């Protein structure tokens, strides 16, 4: 098609402004151009506003079901609270609460009853302002609190996550890097299908 185009356009005209191959590139078939432009526009938008990392790795994954392999090992059952992990029943293991938000990550370690023993947040750790809400801050915080917990004698933990934010996965990773033994991961994000009216939309 482009060759025909080149032949139709007189060589003089081409020479005046652009070389011939450029002219051929300037023309687009009508039925494709709209989709193409749209795609381009989308790509541009994606580049300008990169997707916010809210720490939910694996959300959009569709694995060929690895879940079906050993279901009974993965999910708790009615016997789990009394199941022994290194001679401690599951419901006696200390708890680590990780509260993740867009701007901060707060990690507390409590005993099995829920009495807070250790608390650390990204702000306490020394990250201030926007740096608080990063995955690196969360990981550093988790490593600090993890080593503190080890010193206090909490080697096994049940983790309870709540909220979405950049620290969600990296806090877990930090705890692991500190050398703690994580027994289970629970999600405790407060989600309601008939919530009270939330605050108004952000104006951008």
């Amino acid at each position: 098609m482009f060759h025909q185009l080149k032949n139709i356009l007189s060589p003089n005209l081409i020479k005046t402004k652009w070389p011939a191959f450029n002219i051929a590139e300037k023309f687009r078939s009508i039925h494709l151009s709209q989709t193409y432009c749209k795609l381009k526009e989308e790509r541009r938008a994606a580049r300008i506003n990169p997707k916010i990392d809210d720490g939910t790795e694996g959300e959009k994954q569709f694995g060929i079901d690895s879940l079906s392999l050993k279901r009974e090992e993965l999910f708790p059952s009615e016997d789990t609270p009394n199941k022994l992990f290194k001679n401690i029943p599951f419901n006696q293991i200390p708890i680590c609460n990780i509260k993740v938000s867009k701007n901060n990550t707060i990690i507390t370690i409590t005993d099995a009853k829920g009495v807070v023993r250790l608390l650390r947040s990204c702000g306490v750790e020394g990250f201030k302002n926007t740096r608080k809400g990063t995955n690196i801050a969360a990981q550093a915080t988790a490593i600090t609190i993890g080593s503190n917990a080890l010193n206090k004698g909490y080697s096994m933990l049940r983790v309870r996550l709540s909220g979405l934010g950049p620290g969600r996965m990296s806090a877990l990773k930090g705890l692991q890097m500190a050398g703690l033994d994580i027994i289970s991961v629970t999600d405790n994000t407060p989600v309601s299908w008939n919530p009270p009216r939330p605050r108004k939309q952000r104006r951008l």
Partner: protein
Amino acid sequence: MPNRHIPFLARTVLVRNGNVDEAARILNRILGKEGILDQYRRTRYYEKPSQQRRRINYEKCKAIYNEDMTRKMQFIMRKNRADPFPGCI
């Protein structure tokens, strides 16, 4: 707000062989699939009724499109052989 679920039984994944990352990913995947994370994100800010209508209409259209498209693909890919892909697992 009281938590009406049994703690550490609901929305819990046990860690297998120290593989925390896998457990967290499974948890995220399930939460994502069930639409819990979407609902959480949606309720951070008030969604005006008009926006809600638009979203729901869009979702309906998308679901219809997806359904039709899967049916179409199934139709194109249908086969009538004893072993449809010989030599493959």
